[in-house]
């Protein structure tokens, strides 16, 4: 028998860690989607430059949607801070050993990058902006006139998208005190999950955007129109949607593989990691892990999308919605189960 009693009862720490509530899973989720959208948007820009997709459909919507989602995520992140008035301290220093410091600086670069990326198509989608601020049109024309500039933007989106998608997983994986997080595959897993959620969101947008109407001319109507109206003569062609579904199938398959590797990594490591493995396999998080993440969030959309591509069932938005549910569940599970997971004393102390 081993019985430990303690007089400590610090809030958020005892009986187990609960420092991160809904804000962090939400940030990790939308941050992952933004990363995925940046990478997919970068690819769309490269295709546009190569003349493979003259409409460059997602080159507008990926950066604009990313920008809005990033604001949501950063808002959640700010709400989570306990010492909010001192948030500026992050940008007075760079701490090379802290993934959070890396991530803060990446986020600072991502904002102007997303604005510049949206600028490529923004005057066309939001005429009021171009009329009121003529320089917006000039900047946009300057970008469109030089394919090498769009190519540079595309690669910046891809590289910083990877950085944004992977840093959150690396942040958690550096914490030796939380064995569930302390596995190196977490970064790549979050990146792939973000990519698949980004593809699912683009897929949803391609289906749900209203048909093309003349661009609203006003300030507010134009802004809303730029977000929800497709550019070009018609909605994206079937090939674009199919390409997204195909990409999502590949990404979900890689995600299953990575989850498998995560579990193998946990069960074959230390006693602490094995205890974290039990949390997911049979502990209090097992239903969320197996039922919601693995079955509903990955395997079911994998099956449905495979059948859709094979023309066995009609296209629906159900798989894309399920992928988004799975993406959120992965972050929720990791944050909550990770805070329960602790280093196990092998010497019974």
């Amino acid at each position, binding site marked *: *028998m*081993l*019985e*430990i*009693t*303690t*007089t*400590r*009862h*610090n*809030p*958020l*720490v*005892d009986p187990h*860690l609960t*420092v*991160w509530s809904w804000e962090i899973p939400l940030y990790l989720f939308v941050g992952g989607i933004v990363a995925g959208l940046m990478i997919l948007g970068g690819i769309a820009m490269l295709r546009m430059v190569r003349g493979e997709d003259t409409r460059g459909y997602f080159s507008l919507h990926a950066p604009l949607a990313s920008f809005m989602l990033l604001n949501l995520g950063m808002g959640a992140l700010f709400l*989570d*801070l*306990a*010492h*909010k*008035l*001192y*948030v500026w*301290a*992050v940008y*007075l*220093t760079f*701490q090379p*050993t*802290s*993934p*959070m*410091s890396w991530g*803060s600086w990446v986020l600072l670069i991502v904002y102007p990058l997303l604005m510049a990326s949206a600028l490529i198509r923004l005057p066309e989608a939001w005429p009021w902006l171009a009329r009121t601020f003529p320089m917006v049109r000039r900047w946009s024309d300057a970008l469109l006139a030089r394919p090498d500039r769009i190519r540079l933007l595309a690669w910046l989106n891809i590289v910083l998208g990877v950085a944004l998608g992977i840093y959150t997983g690396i*942040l958690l994986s*550096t*914490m*030796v*005190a*939380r064995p569930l997080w302390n596995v190196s595959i977490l970064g790549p897993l979050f990146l792939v999950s973000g990519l698949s959620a980004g593809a699912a969101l683009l897929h949803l947008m391609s289906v749900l955007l209203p048909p093309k109407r003349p661009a609203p001319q006003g300030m507010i109507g134009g802004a809303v129109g730029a977000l929800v109206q497709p550019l070009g003569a018609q909605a994206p062609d079937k090939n674009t949607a199919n390409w997204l579904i195909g990409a999502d199938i590949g990404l979900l398959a890689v995600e299953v593989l990575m989850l498998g590797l995560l579990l193998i990594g946990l069960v074959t490591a*230390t*006693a*602490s990691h094995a205890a974290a493995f039990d949390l997911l396999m049979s502990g209090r998080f097992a239903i969320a892990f197996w039922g919601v993440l693995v079955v509903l969030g990955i395997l079911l959309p994998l099956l449905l999308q495979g059948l859709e591509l094979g023309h066995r069932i009609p296209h629906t938005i159900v798989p894309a919605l399920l992928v988004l549910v799975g993406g959120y569940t992965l972050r929720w599970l990791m944050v909550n189960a990770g*805070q329960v997971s*602790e*280093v*196990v*004393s*092998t*010497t*019974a*102390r």
Partner: protein
Amino acid sequence: MARFGMVIDTRKCVGCMDCVVACQTENDVPLGHARDWIATVVRGEFPSLSMEIRSERCNHCDNPPCVTCCPTGASHVSDLGGIVKVTANRCIGCKACLSACPYGARFVNPKGYADKCTFCDHRVKEGKDPACVSVCPTHCMVFGDLDDPKSTAATLLRTRQWHTLLPEAGTRPRVFYLT
């Protein structure tokens, strides 16, 4: 540079909580929070039982994960004997250090910043012992420079059996428990 640490004799500790009260008073620790606490560990099967009473706190690790994860450098290793400290006006309250500490030694001060034991560095600077050490009625705690072979702390570690908390975490704690 000195390397301050603490050696606590579990054979002398009676769990009176004087150290806890002294810390609360000396450091004005907010109500409902604790920078140090008493853990009681009972092992074995009745009637073959053993009990260890420990006064626990931040371990001021030689390899502190709370310092490496801090995005602002607010969590840092002080020049004063390697004491691990938090600069309140650099801390953004992200709570990464609370997650990174395997001992749960940190908490969020109601003012918003991460808070923890400082080994009473304001007293140490004046050549005094930390408040918890100075009030212990059984003299079970010894504070000193672990790198000075003549210090009482270093001598005890050479001559007595000891353990640290969660050596599995690889943090190299500097609070030692004599057994």
